[in-house]
C-alpha cells in the first residue's frame, strides 16, 4: 500500500511535541520563574521520557476511543468527552474511591479497581447516550450531543456529591484529577495497563478496517454487503467504552483529544479506516504530548496546572468550529 504523506505530518507533530516536552524545563539559574530549553540528563531525562511516553499512550488511547465512537455512532462529533462518557467514567472512579475509603482498601491494586469502575461508568453512560440519540435511521446528532452534555453534567454533579463524602486529603486529589491530569510519577503497572489498552484497542480496530469502511454506508447496504453490523457495533461499543475508561482511570477526563485526534487523521489521511486507525492513535498521541509540553511551559514545573485545561482551551473552540462547518450533518 502506498503510504499517504499525511502520516509524515502526524509523526512529525508527535516528534516535535516529544522533543519540546523533553527539552522544556524551569530555568536553572533561579532568576524567577522562566522557561528554558536544555538537554536533560540523568534522572530528569528518565522523568521526562516517562512523561512523554505516558502522554503519548493516553493520547493514543483517547484517539482510538474517539474513532471507535465516531464510527459506532456514524458521527464526527462523537468523542468520550463530548458524549459524557468521560464524566461517567470519572463518576465510576469516584465511586471506587469512596468505596475504597469506606472499606479501607489498601492503596496497592487500587488502580485495577479504578479501571474497573471507570469502564463500568463509561459503559453505563455510553449505553444511556446511545439510547437517547437512537432514531429509526441511525443516530440523531443533535439529540446525541445534547444528551451527552446533560449526562456529563449529571455525572459531574454525582462526582462532586461523592467528593463531599470523603476526607479533605482525598478530595483535593479528586478535584484536580477531575480536570484531567497526567500523573507525575506513574507506576510501571499503570503504564503497562495503558500500553496494553492502546495496543489492544489498535489491534481490535485494525483487524476490522474493511468492515468499518462498509459500515459507513446505510445499515441495509452494509448488512447486505456481508458485514455483521450487530457484532461490529458491539465491538465498537466496548472498545470505545473500555479505552475511555482506562484513559479516565489513569489521567482523569481529558477533553477533546478523542474528538480532535480522529478529525486530524481524517483530514490528513482520508476516510478509510486502514489509515484512520493508526492515524487517530498517532494524532491523539501527538496532541496530548504537545498539550503537555504547552502545560509544562505555562506552569513552569510547578505541576499544578492540569493538562485537561490546555486541551479544553484548544479543543473547545475547535469543536465550535466543527459545529459551524456543519460537520455533524455529513
Amino acid at each position, binding site marked *: 500500500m502506498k503510504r499517504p504523506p499525511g502520516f509524515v505530518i502526524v509523526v512529525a507533530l508527535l516528534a516535535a511535541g516529544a522533543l519540546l516536552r523533553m527539552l522544556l524545563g524551569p530555568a536553572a539559574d533561579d532568576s524567577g520563574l522562566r522557561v528554558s530549553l536544555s538537554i536533560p540528563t540523568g534522572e530528569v531525562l528518565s522523568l521526562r521520557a516517562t512523561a512523554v511516553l505516558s502522554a503519548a499512550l493516553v493520547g493514543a488511547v483517547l484517539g482510538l476511543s474517539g474513532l471507535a465512537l465516531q464510527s459506532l455512532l456514524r458521527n464526527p462529533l462523537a468523542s468520550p468527552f463530548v458524549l459524557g462518557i468521560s464524566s461517567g467514567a470519572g463518576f465510576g472512579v469516584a465511586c471506587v474511591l469512596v468505596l475504597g475509603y469506606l472499606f479501607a482498601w489498601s492503596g496497592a491494586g487500587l488502580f485495577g479497581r479504578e479501571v474497573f469502575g471507570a469502564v463500568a461508568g463509561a459503559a453505563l453512560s455510553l449505553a444511556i447516550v446511545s439510547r437517547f440519540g437512537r432514531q429509526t435511521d441511525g443516530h440523531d446528532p443533535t439529540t446525541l450531543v445534547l444528551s451527552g452534555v446533560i449526562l456529563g453534567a449529571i455525572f459531574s454533579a454525582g462526582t462532586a456529591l461523592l467528593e463531599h463524602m470523603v476526607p479533605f486529603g482525598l478530595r483535593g486529589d479528586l478535584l484536580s484529577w477531575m480536570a484531567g491530569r497526567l500523573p507525575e510519577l506513574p507506576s510501571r503497572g499503570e503504564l503497562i495497563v495503558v500500553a496494553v489498552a492502546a495496543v489492544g484497542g489498535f489491534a481490535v480496530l485494525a483487524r476490522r478496517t474493511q468492515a468499518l*469502511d*462498509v459500515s459507513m*454506508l*446505510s445499515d*441495509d*447496504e452494509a448488512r447486505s*454487503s*456481508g458485514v455483521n453490523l450487530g457484532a461490529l457495533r458491539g465491538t465498537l461499543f466496548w472498545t470505545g467504552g473500555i479505552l475511555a475508561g482506562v484513559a479516565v482511570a489513569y489521567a482523569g477526563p481529558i477533553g477533546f483529544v478523542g474528538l480532535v485526534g480522529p478529525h486530524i487523521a481524517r483530514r490528513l489521511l482520508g476516510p*478509510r479506516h486502514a489509515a484512520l486507525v493508526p492515524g487517530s492513535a498517532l494524532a491523539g498521541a501527538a496532541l496530548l504530548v504537545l498539550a503537555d509540553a504547552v502545560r509544562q511551559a505555562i506552569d513552569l514545573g510547578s505541576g499544578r496546572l492540569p493538562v485537561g485545561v490546555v486541551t479544553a482551551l484548544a479543543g473547545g473552540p475547535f469543536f465550535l468550529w466543527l459545529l459551524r462547518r456543519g460537520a455533524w450533518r455529513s
Partner: protein
Amino acid sequence: MEILTTALLAGMRLSQRYGATVALHETTIEVERGQILAVVGPNGCGKSTLLRALAGLAHGEGAGGFSLFSSKVPSREHRAKVMAFVPQRPDLAADFTAREVVQLGRFARGADEYAVGDALRAVGLRVRSELPMRVLSGGERQRVAVARALAQIDGADPCVLLLDEPFSGIDPGEVSRIVGALRATAERGAVVLSLHDPGLARAIATHAAVMSGGRIVSHGVASEVLVPETLTKAYGHPIDQVAGWLAPRIEPSR
C-alpha cells in the same frame, strides 16, 4: 417450513408488521433466472418491505421462509457474494469518493479493480469517479449506489440484484443506461426492482408483481399483468394506456 423450488430466489409467506400496521401479509413470490421482475403498486403498499425481506434484511416476528438458490438458510457471507441490494435512500459516506464507495461493494468477494471499473462504466460515472460523494448530485449518488451493488455481484453466476426505486432522481438518458446494466445482470441471474411508475415497469421488466395493501394482487408476465384494469384497481385511480405507455389519467389543464 419446507420449500421445494427451483427458483433462484423465493420468499414464502413473508410477513412484516410495523406496530399495528401490517406492511406485508403472507406474501409468496418466486423469481426465476433471466427475469427482471418489477414490483409496482401505490405508495405504502409494501414494495420496499417486500424487497428488504427478499434481501434477508427483515427481522421481527413471522418473517416467513426464504430460499436463495434452493439453499434455505444462506449464510450472511454466501448471501453477500451472490445477492446485492440497493435501498431506496442509499446513505453513502460523504467523505468517500465514488470509486471508493464502489470498492466497498467488494467486501464479500474480495478487491477487484476490473469489477469496480466495469460497474462505474455501467452507470456512466467513470470520469467522475474520483470526486467525493458530497459534491455529486442526487442522481449521481443513486448511480454510485447501483454501481456498488453491481460490483458486489460481479463474477457471481447465478446472482440476484434487488433495487428499491433505483431510478428516483435519475434523468431519462441515465435510466436507459442503467437498464442496460440490469439486463446484462439478468442474463446470469435475476433482477427484482420496485418502481412507482407502471409505464417504466412495463418498458423494462419481463415480469411484474402488482401489490396493494401488503399483498401481491397480480403476478406474471409483465405484458399480461401491467394492464390498465389491474393497475386501476391497485392504485385506486384510473390508469390509461396512452400511445403504449401506462400513465395516470390527469385532466388536461385549461
